[in-house]
């Protein structure tokens, strides 16, 4: 097969029908550009929303759940073994919220190959006192460097510096909603009452804003030491161990493993944030579906134009066959013709898609709930461009295949004799 000649003929056929060919190619361009834009934008949005929640939550969180003892005394009793026991009004057992032996668990986790890092945490419900009013809230005692490494906590500190928590004792960073309610700013001192009744004064060194009002109205951060002191506990007191894995997909399995290994409760990110996963998936499906639909429409355009071209070029096909082109050669002429339209249209589509996403990326998108976001989010991933061009080639090849098969089967005798 003389490929160069076949492509040359295909090019000349396109040139002879340049306008229609351009229209067909524009169909593909539009489809691909829209596909790239949609997918990039949707995934940008997905990443943003995932980041909002998933990046801030540990892949696996180890803690003590408040729950009743699994093995109630009656089930342990030999006398009642094999019976079905109904027990009513069971109360959860007070095991305390402290994770026992936390230091050795952390050490062991740090040696696990799947683990990026571990961040211990102390959470404690407290009351913030302002005047005569007490506002309920939560204090998160964090290991600042580890927390910064895993969750980029500094992204959400809109005023002040998170490392100041370590530099000075008895300091606190409070949520923006909280600071507005109490009408305080950096440098002010606030009073906090713990559940046990202790009263502590802490200096504000920063304001945080996560973007979820409910959290911003209640949350505050201190160093681990400050939180432990606040609760009147020793330096080993830890209520949560947050683990980040190299791959979030391994989280459910790892959670199960840690649960049985350390005899502690563990929850993975997927379970904790199942609604976010669902949302992301549906958005991806929608963007792919729209992109594919556009391409199929473009494919029909190509199919039509090729069919028309074949009817117009019957004579040429007949003489090509008479002078030594086989049905296969003619078929490849039309397939390459279709592919030329598809690839040209597709490449322009990628270009326009890239331009369009750049434009969207530059549009200001400022919302008080997302302090780190200044413009609409776009995910520039080379994979989308590969998928896009593959789609373009695939749909045009399919669209071109049927007319090409028809052209290959044209009987030159019928056409020549028909004259």
């Amino acid at each position: 097969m003389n490929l160069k000649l076949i492509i040359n003929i295909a090019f000349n056929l396109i040139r002879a029908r340049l306008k229609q060919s351009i229209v067909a190619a524009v169909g593909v361009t539009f489809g691909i550009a829209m596909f790239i834009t949609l997918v990039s934008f949707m995934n940008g949005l997905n990443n943003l929303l995932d980041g909002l929640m998933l990046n801030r939550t540990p892949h696996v969180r180890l803690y003590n759940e408040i729950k009743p003892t699994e093995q109630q005394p009656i089930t342990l009793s030999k006398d009642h073994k094999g019976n079905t026991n109904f027990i009513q009004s069971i109360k959860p057992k007070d095991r305390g919220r402290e994770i026992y032996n936390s230091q050795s668990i952390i050490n062991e986790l740090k040696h696990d190959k799947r683990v990026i890092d571990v961040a211990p945490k102390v959470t404690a419900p407290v009351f913030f006192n302002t005047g005569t009013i007490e506002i309920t809230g939560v204090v998160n005692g964090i290991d600042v460097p580890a927390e910064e490494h895993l969750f980029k906590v500094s992204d959400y500190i809109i005023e002040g510096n998170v490392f100041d928590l370590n530099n000075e004792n008895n300091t606190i960073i409070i949520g923006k909603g909280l600071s507005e309610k109490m009408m305080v700013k950096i440098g002010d001192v606030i009073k906090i009452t713990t559940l046990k009744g202790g009263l502590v004064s802490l200096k504000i060194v920063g304001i945080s804003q996560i973007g979820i009002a409910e959290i911003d109205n209640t949350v505050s951060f201190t160093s681990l030491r400050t939180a432990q002191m606040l609760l009147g506990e020793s330096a080993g007191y830890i209520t949560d161990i947050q683990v980040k894995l190299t791959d979030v997909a391994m989280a459910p399995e790892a959670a199960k493993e840690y649960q049985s290994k350390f005899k502690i409760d563990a929850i993975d990110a997927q379970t904790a944030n199942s609604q976010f996963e669902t949302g992301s998936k549906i958005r991806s499906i929608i963007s792919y579906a729209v992109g594919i639909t556009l391409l199929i429409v473009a494919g029909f355009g190509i199919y039509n134009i090729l069919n028309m071209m074949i009817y117009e070029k019957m004579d040429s096909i007949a003489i090509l066959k008479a002078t030594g082109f086989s049905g296969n050669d003619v078929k490849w002429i039309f397939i390459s013709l279709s592919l030329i339209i598809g690839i040209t249209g597709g490449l322009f589509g990628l270009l326009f898609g890239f331009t369009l996403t750049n434009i969207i990326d530059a549009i200001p998108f400022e919302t008080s709930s997302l302090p780190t976001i200044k413009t609409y989010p776009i995910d520039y991933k080379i994979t989308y461009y590969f998928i896009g061009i593959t789609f373009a080639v695939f749909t045009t090849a399919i669209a071109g295949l049927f007319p090409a098969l028809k052209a290959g089967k044209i009987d030159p005798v019928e056409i020549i004799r028909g004259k």
Partner: protein
Amino acid sequence: MSHKVLETKNINKYFYDPVKFRVLSDINLSINEGEFVSVVGKSGCGKSTLLYILSTMDTDYEGDLYINGEKLSLKKDKDLAKIRNEYIGFVFQFHYLLSEYNVLRNVMLPGIKLAKYSMQEIEHHAMEHLRTLDMTDQALKMPNQLSGGQKQRVAIARALINNPIIIMGDEPTGNLDKKNSDMVFDIFDNLVKQRNQALLIVTHDPEFAEKTHRTIEMADGKIINHSSIA
């Protein structure tokens, strides 16, 4: 006896639509190199049908066809296309030039397909054929800029580009006036004399047929007369 370029043995062909009808019955003929043969007959006698079978484009027949000593019946489309490309040149009533290409490129096309020579050589051959046909000045024009007679000459040049052993024509002078028709005959005559190529021309022009070496007369799908003037 010189070399046979084309031979048929008991070729039969049927049309099935609307009823089974025998178009060709037991056609036996052979053509030698350097022979100028015309096929005549009334309209509907099967002469064109025969030509398209001989041209290998129509494969729906019974019997055997040999070109250059090679049996072609039952060969695949791809192989037949190759044989048409290399051994057969066509001239039809209509010129069938590709409107996308200029004259030179049209002539070169079967040569490029054959890919036996380099592009420069093919171009050189094409120009030579155009020169013998007195078409050198038109080489870079597009087909739609030519007159009917000129187009037919380009079509002849295209048929010659691969130096075929046989040139087949289906009423090649059918659309031409007397002057152009005579000219086409002279071109064919020269080909036979100078290049020793065989010619098989279907025509209904008795004057044209008379001037050829041999005339095969057909009626009702049978050869009724081989008249030879040589």
